[in-house]
């Protein structure tokens, strides 16, 4: 029917167009009339339009035929070469287009552009996509030029050219970006053997590596390099020299391993940096840079985490706990298309079969009469036990840190005493999670919910440990601050004494400077804090690697080789091969990052160490997974787990920002080390820069803005905005739930109607159907008669 219409209208247009030039185009258009359905509808529109326009503009023949020609070509998407010739001949006759024609044309062009940009989303065959794309591109190119006639032609052409260049640039940049993504093949190998959930850990690791690389670039380029290149050289100042007392042992490996000795007085730590306001011929403001880089580390991380969360939230619009589609989802989304390995495929088939059988059993079983009270009691008991464990571990850490302070004063502290804190924290991190899992067996939750509880508890454990560690560290810092006052006095008097003595001995006007190694040094608390974090990170790395080596690799070797001469089947029973612990590893990564964020302000080199760690982790863990792990037997995913881990990361980011912000705001910096030495508070560097480097009015503006009278209303406004947005979000959620309920009810109703209809008296049904005919019921009488 459509084709006939097309052809008839083709003839109509033919007759109208025959008045003007382009009989050739008319024949061509007729030939092209046999096209797809979508063009047919436009054809009909055009056929209707033409006669009315004919009546309206019968005077301006030339104008109309040109318009018709253009529209005809729009809607039929005719051959490019022919249409250019006719269009050019037409446009060369006319200079200006009327407003509505221009608008219509522009709309067409916009539509075509939109089609081009969404071409890849269309569910067509490639051949069709390519041809439609070519035609759309030809159309856009031809008419963009024509649109540019009239006023603003040059500007329009320029805008188009810039837009095209921008598209090309974006495409090249995207190409370049995908080339830079490392380890794609490695992840694919892991994916094909273990499925997408294990691979998601490695994808997360790769993402963390990218973030850390950027942070490292920031710190290295803006803080470390300027100080090393343009600052005072090593050995020229007290803060950059190993003190005389320590010089004897400064190169020993054991001392270096503890990050004392030469490493302590290097650019890796806070204490190395000079507080000179500007350094070098560039007048680079290092203290300001140090402060701003510290803040931007947090700012960049925050931005990146939130952007990633927003992207994940867009994709997962569903709520995973929907019970409406259990079987449907099992059928259509349980096979993992990433699997590329026969063993894994076997495993997957087995787990899908088991899962179906379980669901069938669940479906057929009537509700078991559960003893609710017993279950509740057991759950409360389990939670109490776990809280006891958490408190116990927190106290243990506090105790151990306090003890390490007394150890550090001892002269010959053994290796164990020196590293006790790190060992205890790592051991707690290793043994508590399995303990929580065994206690959680009391609770008898659905596996998915049980996993969330487990993750939450491990999170609480790590958090508690970290904060206890920080508290103990704070005590240490306060002690050092007290000590500092004493040392400051000593240094002052020593320098004075040295000056006087040199004046007495020689007659030179300038006294020889005291050798930097001999100047009494204050206890640089910032460097101490930095060292603690670095040691914690290093020990964490070591413990992780050793756990993987022993827990996975040695275990696999044992099971494989000793199985021949063992009483029971090691591979099937205990201990068997290890499965890859996704959540444990992800949490470890998240907490490691939290420590990095906390420590990077006091130890700029920490981020570099972390980059190395992530790099080696990738290769090491890929190897370990492929060689010693087996795919999971029971595969279920904690739904939306991606966003769950990102949420954890965000939380850790805030929690690690707090201690750093506190120390910046309220603790005085050391008097003789670091870029802020000599100031009363670290943030004074900002005031100093504003006063000295910016014109006067900037300082005035800042002083007005920093007025509490302005800040408090601003905070109130933000609180109100949050409240309002929250209310709006809740309203949307409620509306959503209502709609869902309505849809559900409608479906139930229809199902009931159908079921009821099928069981009624066939005679009554016939009567009913005769009275109220509907497409569905028309089939029913036939069915009834068929019975």
């Amino acid at each position, binding site marked *: 029917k459509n084709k006939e219409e097309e052809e008839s209208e083709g003839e109509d247009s033919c007759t109208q167009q025959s008045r003007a030039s382009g009989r050739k185009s008319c024949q061509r258009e007729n030939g092209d009339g046999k096209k797809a359905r979508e063009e047919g509808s436009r054809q009909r529109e055009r056929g209707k339009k033409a006669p009315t326009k004919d009546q309206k503009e019968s005077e301006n023949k030339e104008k109309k035929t040109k318009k018709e020609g253009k529209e005809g070509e729009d809607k039929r998407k005719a051959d490019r070469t022919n249409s250019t010739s006719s269009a050019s001949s037409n446009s060369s006759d006319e200079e200006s287009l009327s407003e509505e024609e221009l608008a219509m044309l522009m709309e067409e062009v916009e539509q075509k552009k939109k089609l081009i940009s969404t071409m*890849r989303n269309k569910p067509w065959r490639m051949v069709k996509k390519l041809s439609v794309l070519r035609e759309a591109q030809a159309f856009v190119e031809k008419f963009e030029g024509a649109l540019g006639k009239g006023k603003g032609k040059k500007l329009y052409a320029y805008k188009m050219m810039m837009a095209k260049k921008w598209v090309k640039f974006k495409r090249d940049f995207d190409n370049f970006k995908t080339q830079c993504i490392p380890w794609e093949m490695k992840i694919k190998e892991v994916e094909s053997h273990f499925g997408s959930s294990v691979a998601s850990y490695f994808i997360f690791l790769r993402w963390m590596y990218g973030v850390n690389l950027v942070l490292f670039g920031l710190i290295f380029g803006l803080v470390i390099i300027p100080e090393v290149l343009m600052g005072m050289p090593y050995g020229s100042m007290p803060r950059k020299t190993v003190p005389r007392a320590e010089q004897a042992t400064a190169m020993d490996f054991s001392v270096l391993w503890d990050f004392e000795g030469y490493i302590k007085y290097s650019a890796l730590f806070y204490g190395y940096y000079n507080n000179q306001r500007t350094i070098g011929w560039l007048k680079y403001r290092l203290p300001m840079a140090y402060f701003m880089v510290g803040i931007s580390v947090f700012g960049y991380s925050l931005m990146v985490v939130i952007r990633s969360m927003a992207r994940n939230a867009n994709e997962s619009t569903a709520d995973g706990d929907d019970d409406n589609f259990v079987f449907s*989802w099992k059928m259509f989304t349980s096979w993992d298309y990433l699997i590329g390995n026969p063993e894994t495929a076997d495993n997957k088939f087995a787990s899908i079969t088991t899962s179906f059988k379980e669901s069938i059993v669940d479906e057929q079983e009537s509700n078991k009469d559960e003893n609710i009270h017993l279950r509740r009691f057991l759950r409360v008991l389990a939670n109490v036990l776990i809280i006891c464990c958490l408190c116990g571990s927190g106290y243990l850490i506090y105790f151990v840190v306090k003890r390490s302070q007394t150890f550090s004063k001892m002269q010959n502290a053994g290796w164990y005493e020196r590293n006790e804190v790190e060992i205890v924290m790592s051991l707690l991190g290793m043994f508590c999670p399995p303990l929580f899992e065994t206690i959680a067996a009391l609770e008898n939750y659905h596996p998915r919910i049980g996993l969330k509880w487990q993750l939450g508890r491990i999170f609480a454990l790590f958090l508690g440990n970290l904060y206890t560690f920080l508290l103990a560290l704070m005590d240490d810092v306060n002690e050092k601050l007290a000590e500092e006052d004493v040392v400051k006095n000593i240094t002052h008097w020593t320098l004075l004494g040295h000056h006087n003595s040199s004046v007495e001995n020689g007659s030179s006007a300038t006294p020889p400077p005291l050798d930097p190694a001999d100047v009494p040094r204050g206890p640089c608390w910032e460097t101490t804090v930095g060292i603690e974090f670095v040691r914690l990170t290093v020990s964490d790395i070591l413990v992780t690697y050793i756990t993987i080596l022993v827990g996975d690799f040695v275990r696999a070797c044992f099971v494989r080789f000793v199985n021949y001469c063992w009483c029971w089947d090691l591979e099937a029973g205990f201990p068997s091969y290890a499965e890859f612990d996704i959540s444990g590893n992800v949490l470890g990564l998240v907490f490691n990052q939290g420590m990095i964020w906390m420590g990077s302000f006091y130890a700029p080199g920490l981020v570099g160490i972390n980059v190395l760690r992530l790099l080696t982790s990738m290769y090491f863990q890929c190897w370990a997974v492929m060689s010693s792990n087996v795919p999971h037997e029971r595969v279920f995913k904690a739904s939306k787990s991606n966003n769950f881990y990102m949420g954890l990361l965000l939380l850790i980011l805030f929690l690690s920002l707090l201690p750093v912000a506190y120390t910046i705001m309220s603790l005085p910096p050391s008097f003789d080390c670091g870029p802020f030495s000599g100031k009363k508070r670290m943030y004074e560097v900002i005031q100093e820069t504003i006063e000295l480097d910016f014109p006067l009015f900037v300082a005035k503006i800042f002083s007005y803005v920093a007025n509490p009278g302005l800040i408090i209303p601003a905070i109130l406004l933000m609180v109100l905005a949050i409240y309002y947005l929250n209310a709006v979000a809740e309203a949307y959620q409620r509306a959503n739930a209502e709609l869902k309920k309505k849809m559900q009810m409608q479906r139930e109703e229809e199902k009931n109607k*159908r079921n009821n209809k099928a069981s009624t008296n066939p005679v009554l049904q016939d009567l009913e159907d005769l009275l109220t005919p509907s497409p569905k019921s028309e089939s029913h009488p036939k069915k009834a008669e068929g019975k």
Partner: protein
Amino acid sequence: MGNKQTVFTAEQLDAYQDCTFFTRKEILRLFHRYRDLAPQLVPLDYTDRPAVTLPYELIGSMPELKDNPFRQRIAEVFSADGDGNMTLDDFLDMFSVLSEMAPRDLKAYYAFKIYDFNNDDYICKSDLEKTVNKLTRNELTPEEVRLVCEKVIYEADADNDGKLSLEDFQRMIVRAPDFLSTFHIRI
């Protein structure tokens, strides 16, 4: 990043980049994967768009597909002749839809076609039975299979015609949390 390749013209590569979710490098890599399946059949120069079709046996033996129980259906859906014999265009199309960047709706459309074994634009009971048997390698009893299929129709069939239409399927699958991550092949 110069135009050192001689397989496609620049326009062809740009067109492919517009029609798939792949970048230039990935398209070339896919071309070489396609060629590696049958180097003597596939020419190195595609500038004149030769009409080369590879038989299904070669496609189904690719490591990414050979363990997939639905590989035959996937090839049939994306091939022009409906028998699984694919040209390079079909090959690119297939991996583009199955890639990470494809949106949910597009994947749902093609997933529907894959699971519609008899190509009648509805997923009927027999299609469901075939799906379950492929997923469990015939390990379930016929009674269990019947139960599962009935449950699926009960859950997802919204217009009550005893089979799943495209709208039913899309409505159901769009809300599945695992769909995007499982209906994905990395190449």
